């Protein structure tokens, strides 16, 4: 039976040699290699739950009055988009489960990409010949951020409307092209033309997912064609030989276990842990805002940056040249993106290392890289944390103005301190290893000497 299937496939596709090779592809073993896989599986859940949501969601700003089953909103004027999102939450059976799972999956998707990127960075996995795989990965991270932003903007609740207003201001602030570009995107000054909702919708449900899906395929193809990197757990793992577990039968149940674990966590969260209760925020109107507004976690670094920049526009001859949101909302993420993309080549220039690398570094093996990475990460994280200073004010009573001034200093000093400490730690760890190795060697020599003495 199995043999007949194999024969059938081979005759019609000629693909059996390829399948056999795929089944015996080797996966080196380390827990941190699973982070990228978590992102992949979260993406699968996102597509599945997303398709379900499209069957009920209405991407339209047409005005309507709510008469659904959630009493506090009854009689309120709102957009069809917001109404259909509230209906998904209350009147579509299983709708709320799928909506919340979709939202959780988006948060986990971006989180796992970020952790994966951190792992790739600190182990030097991006080095020759895997720079392209890395570049595609970084691009996917930024596409995922935009895709997530579009997703929660579509709902047209109060928070998403405020988020869109900020996005609009950031787009406007881009020198030279900002105003015209935003008019093309929004079709009209904010809140925009009704067709803006169709544009956001098609971008969120088709254009971005297809691009991300295509890049995932390319990313995985490149990973497989150059094979996985590996840590050196044992001496037979070298730059030329890899040791690992084959896809089938060894790796397959592990991977499936991870997939089902990811799905389990996401659906449990979706069912049991409330996320973005849009019916509490109410519909968005330009004249409304709320205090304590926070975006999804993965945009926290941008809100932090927008808040930290001191108040100035670059004005020349009564014309604004660079409006303020540009610095935190556009320049900052672009700097992070460009720095990440350029890093493999920057490092190559710094170290002059042009060799092929299949064996990963431990962070301590490359103290300078680890220091730069730790400093860079601290910079982004501190700006991220600064985005929550209004919450710190509410919960801890620390002066908001004082916090902002502290962060304005800290985001520049902190990275230097952390980078230096990371460098020192790496050097220290390596020295400890060298001493240990020396001791072992000395003991062996002593033992050998004792033996020869005994033999004599």
């Amino acid at each position: 039976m199995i043999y007949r299937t194999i024969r059938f496939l081979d005759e019609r596709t000629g693909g059996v040699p390829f399948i056999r090779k795929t089944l015996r592809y080797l996966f080196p073993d380390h827990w941190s290699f699973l982070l990228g896989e978590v992102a992949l599986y979260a993406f699968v859940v996102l597509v599945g739950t997303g398709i379900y949501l499209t069957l009920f969601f209405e991407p339209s700003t047409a005005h309507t009055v709510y008469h659904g089953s959630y009493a506090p909103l009854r009689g309120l004027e709102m957009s069809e988009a917001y109404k259909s999102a509230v209906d998904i939450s209350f009147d579509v059976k299983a709708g709320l489960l799928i909506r919340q799972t979709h939202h959780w999956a988006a948060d986990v998707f971006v989180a796992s990409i970020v952790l994966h990127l951190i792992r790739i960075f600190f182990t030097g996995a991006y080095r020759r010949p895997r720079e392209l795989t890395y570049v595609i990965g970084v691009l996917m991270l930024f596409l995922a951020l935009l895709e997530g932003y579009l997703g929660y903007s579509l709902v047209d609740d109060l928070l998403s409307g405020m988020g869109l207003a900020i996005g609009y201001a950031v787009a406007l602030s881009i020198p030279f092209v900002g105003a015209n570009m935003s008019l093309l995107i929004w079709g009209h000054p904010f809140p925009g033309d009704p067709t803006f909702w169709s544009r956001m919708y098609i971008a969120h449900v088709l254009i971005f997912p297809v691009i991300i899906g295509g890049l995932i395929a390319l990313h995985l193809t490149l990973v497989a064609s150059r094979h996985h990197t590996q840590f050196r757990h044992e001496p037979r793992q070298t730059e030329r030989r890899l040791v690992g577990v084959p896809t089938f039968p060894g790796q397959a149940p592990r991977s499936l276990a991870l997939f089902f674990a990811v799905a389990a966590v996401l659906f449990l969260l979706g069912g049991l842990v409330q996320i973005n209760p849009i019916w509490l925020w109410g519909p968005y109107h330009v004249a409304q805002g709320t205090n304590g507004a926070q975006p999804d976690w993965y945009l926290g670094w941008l809100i932090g940056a927008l808040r930290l920049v001191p108040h100035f526009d670059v004005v020349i001859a009564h014309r604004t040249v660079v409006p303020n949101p540009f610095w935190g909302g556009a320049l900052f993420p672009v700097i992070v993106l460009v720095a990440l993309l350029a890093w493999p080549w920057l490092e190559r220039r710094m170290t002059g290392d042009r060799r092929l690398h299949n064996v990963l570094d431990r962070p301590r093996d490359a103290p300078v890289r680890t220091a730069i990475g730790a400093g860079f990460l601290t910079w982004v994280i501190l700006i991220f944390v600064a985005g929550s200073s209004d919450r710190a004010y509410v919960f801890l009573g620390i002066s908001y103005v004082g916090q902002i001034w502290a962060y304005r200093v800290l985001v520049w000093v902190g990275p230097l301190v952390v980078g230096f400490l990371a460098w020192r730690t790496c050097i220290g760890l390596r020295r400890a290893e060298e001493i240990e190795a020396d001791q072992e060697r000395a003991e062996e020599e002593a033992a050998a000497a004792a033996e020869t003495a005994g033999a004599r």
Partner: protein
Amino acid sequence: MASERETGGLAEVTLWGLLIAFLALLGLARGAGRRERVVPEGEPDRRAELVAVLLLLGAAGCAVVFIVAYVLDWPDLTQYLGLAIGVAFALVSIAMIVMSRRLVVTEEIEEEYPEPEHPEEQQKLLQVVHESGSRITRKRLLGGAAGAAASAIGAALIVPAASLGPFLDTESFYDSPWRRGRRLVDEGGRPYRADDIEEGTFYTAYPQGADREQLAAPLVVVRMAPAALRLPADRRGWAPQGILAYSKICTHAGCAIALYRKPLFPEAEPRPALVCPCHYSTFDPAKGGTVIFGPAGRNLPQLPLLVDRRGGLRAAGNFSGPVGPSFWGVRTRRPRST
């Protein structure tokens, strides 16, 4: 090791011996179906099999609970559905872990990394590229023409994108529904009277009979003691009875200014301020909306007011500057009334 051939017992030094051994091996493999194994053998583990079966059946049970809950529409459906399908997935996941630890052979195989380069193929490819163009004499000219065609056609395909919005016309950013004489109304459409505006709180006002969903529409209105006002000299008479109106849209990122800081602790926060909750841009209503903290780069536009003969609040003109977030080239000029 899977890659090592099992030749023990068959080793013969002579060629004939080898041949016979090979034939015998082939015959054995054909006849009894016994081949050299690819996946090494492992010990069976009947207990682990039982555990995996039970876990998978448990998952099936949870999935059935999901269906039943859905069909019967249990109260707290979202929670039950999430729990049922989540536990089902979790049980399958655990079953897979049992499989991978106890029931599936985990081999550690060695393999060469693929060759990083194929120098010969590279040379061949280069040759193909070079030789294919051997009939063409004016390569540059042809390349230039192809480039011109590609960029012109590309441009032609991009040009319709200009239909997406007004192109190279940013005048609409200066549109405002306010003009002299327009009444200020509240959310319910009721006109504001000067007496309605009390000190210590703020009011949201809209232009009567205009679209409210545009940035230039909403106002924030406050009353302050006339003696406390420090308005610019050219705004004399903009705040009758100390009533001030500002655009409600923050000049930083376009959020609505939803906070009015009326100080409770004079030592810490000495003056009232309008605050945007998005990035905490803070404006001083007494000084014509100047920025006193936060990232906003431009003052809050002020709308001149007048009190009509019946005590109603009306606009006395248009804003002092453009409303909403700044853009490249925005000028500090009064908006135009629509």
